[in-house]
């Protein structure tokens, strides 16, 4: 739709998400693989870009997909 922008993220596998958990892509900043609103594992574009030159460089070429936010419940 004209005038709107869609946030995009990188699609990863569950195996990939487990590999990223607890790992840092830069000093002081960890990866954060998460399930989106569709139940798809994703990381942000920023993490993918900064993965270049790290053991997780495969993220750099991960598919870019629109971000679907998880459901929100303030009572949780």
């Amino acid at each position, binding site marked *: 739709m004209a005038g709107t922008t869609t946030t995009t993220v990188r699609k990863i596998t569950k195996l990939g998400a487990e590999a990223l958990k607890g790992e840092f892509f*830069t000093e002081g*900043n*960890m990866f*954060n693989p998460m399930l989106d609103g569709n139940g798809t594992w994703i990381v*942000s574009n920023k993490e993918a870009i900064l993965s270049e030159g790290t053991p997780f460089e495969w993220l750099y070429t991960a598919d870019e997909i629109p971000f679907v936010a998880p459901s*929100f419940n*303030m*009572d*949780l």
Partner: protein
Amino acid sequence: MVAFSPIEFYNILHDIAQSMPFVTVEGRDVTSRRLNTFAATKNLLEIISSNSLGKDSRYIGKRLFYSTKWSGQDSDIKYEYPALFAGPSNERYEVKGDYYYVDYTLVFGDKFEPKMAQTQNQDIDASRTFEEVQQTLRDLWGVVFVTLKSYVYANLFLGSTQVAAGWFSLGYLQALKTTGSISRWAVTDHFSTLISDVEATEEVDGNASKIATHIVSLRIKHSSCQAYQALPTPSPFTPAIVIDADAQILFNAVEAAGGTVSIDKRISVSTVFTRMKAEGIYDDFYAFYLPMGGLAATNKFNAKNPIDSDAAFRLLFVGGFTHTENAIVPNGVNTYANTYFTPSVHGLATDTAISYYSLTESTGTYIEMGVSGIGGASGVGQYNIAPNVSGTSFRTVNSTGNTSGAGVAGTAGLFTAARTDALTMQLYKNATLVFNDGSLPITVSDKPMYMCGRNVNNASFTPTNRACAFGAIWRNATSSNVAILNGIITDYLTEIGAI
């Protein structure tokens, strides 16, 4: 305009005086027909009453003093009248351009005896009446004035070679050409364009002082011709900068982590520390965060205790943050920062506050700071800054459940969620109380507080995309202290150009 200083003006007057021809009548010198003394002077009245005209051996060889009676070979200054004394009175500088104006006073003086000496063979000079003495002085000024107006700034050439440049009278240039010393000259400036406001201002009664005077005032336009250069910046006289000792510890930690902090930012950050201390709120902070250094490794430090440990409430960034010199920028997708501050462990149930300065106006399901309830139980012990979550505000500070309502208009600014008692909880935007909610049952969360998002039972999170320029966990957040903090942080962010 060529460079032209007051000393050069004195030099010209010196040369004019020196060039005046000696006059003899019937074989006797008539000293009143020429200037026998010229002196650039500091104080005209003082000089006239001085025996030495304020001159000593320092003036030998300099075109600031001339006397037909003193060749500079002996230590005793000798001079005779008529004399020309010249000195400055006022100077006026132009802001635009490199020129300035100096008002000069020229005093032409000659001796005048009130009573005719009863001697024979009176010479021509001594036999003059007061009016005749005055006219003689007026004539001397006339010669000086005409000669001044004939001065030009010229480049002198012999053949195609430039042999000199400077201020010369046209008569002198013609003489040089006649003798073959030069072949031509090229004029670049005329003295007549520099002189203005010429008038005789005063004539002193010679009967009083035995000195008759003709006093002329005039204005000369001088130029430094860009002779002066502005001092480099910063000045070598930069005053010493006092950095708060605790701020210095923070800078040391940032530098050790690979960051750099400009001197301007150091001063601004140091001011935050000193003002917090001066206002008596510094000790109320468990942690506060002032992004600097532009790296995750530098933006993570708790400024109050910049040790790289969870116990020191150092931030752990999770997800795709962008780190800048002045802000931690979450992406609103998968970012949060773990403060490791657990309310049930580290805080007080009824005296607690969290603050978040958002630089971003945005709409969406975003929460800037917070944590959910105890043991994963729904809604118990919640704590958050959630002023506008898709148009709804959620207010809760160490309470079971939350109060919701209209979202706060505008998501940029300093937001503070606080309680200072067991009865009410407040949400401030900047220094303004926007909600004051009645108490819900008090409980405190047993999970760590997240910044740039809300911790949901340690299992998930609600992120924000609102850039964080300041974050804090503190207590004693009375309305006055919130206002103080807002003032300090707003000034700081303004200074560093973040807002």
